[in-house]
């Protein structure tokens, strides 16, 4: 059942990315173009997501276990360290260069766009390099 849920959640997430147009790097770059011609849409996507996920998370976070798994596995990291900041800076730079972050990048493979595919391959190399360090 876990596997079906994973597939289903991926599909729903992907549909959300299409409806919100976040699958389109031009929309993301429009949001990051704060000092030029600004497109605030991405902020509304985040607000939309948070007003659903946050209250529901807090409502159910003390449940003993999830419905289809034996336990919750949720990060309990609290440290604000150098890795968090440096990683976020590097990610922000890459996001601003291409207008893609991991979710939309992978979703846009569906469109068989060569640029998306090149980005995703490079991103997986990035994951691998991070694993080596």
């Amino acid at each position: 059942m876990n596997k079906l849920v994973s597939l289903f959640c991926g599909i729903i997430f992907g549909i959300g990315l299409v409806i919100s147009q976040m699958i389109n790097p031009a929309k993301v770059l429009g949001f990051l173009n704060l000092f030029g011609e600004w497109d605030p849409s991405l902020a509304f996507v985040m607000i939309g997501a948070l007003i659903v996920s946050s209250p529901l998370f807090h409502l159910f976070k003390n449940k003993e276990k999830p419905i289809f798994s034996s336990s919750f596995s949720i990060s309990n990291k609290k440290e604000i360290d150098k890795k968090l900041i440096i990683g976020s800076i590097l990610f922000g730079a890459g996001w601003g260069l291409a207008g893609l972050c991991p979710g939309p990048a992978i979703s846009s493979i569906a469109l068989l766009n060569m640029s998306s595919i090149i980005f995703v391959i490079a991103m997986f190399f990035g994951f691998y390099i991070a694993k080596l360090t």
Partner: protein
Amino acid sequence: MSIINFTPISALTGGLIIGFSVFLFFILNGRMVGVSGIASNFLISKNNRIDNLLFLVGLIFGPLIYSYFTSQKIEISITNSLFLLIGGGLLVGFGTRISGGCTSGHGISGISRFSLRSMIATITFMIVGVLTVLMKNIL
């Protein structure tokens, strides 16, 4: 600053759907969605490998299913500069793994949980993203 191309209704609607996916993954499978984590764990870890793969397959099928049922063609506009794509991809892959999350993992799942760590990550990558676009416009 001037505002253009703003699509608040579709942005909010899509966002609600994304939030619902995050909630379902949490309450059913007990995990928080973070696409960079799911994708990199699929690559490097045996734990939950099939689950992670299926989530990624779902991400790719989402747009196809949407197109099929609405008969709408999805148009995207993306750079074809190899420098931006490969440089951007490497930075996104490396950076998200070093910081432990991306727009979904820190920006949505982490902030949902009121994680200070994720709030700081999100503010940081947004500021740097804005500055990067500013630099691109100047150069």
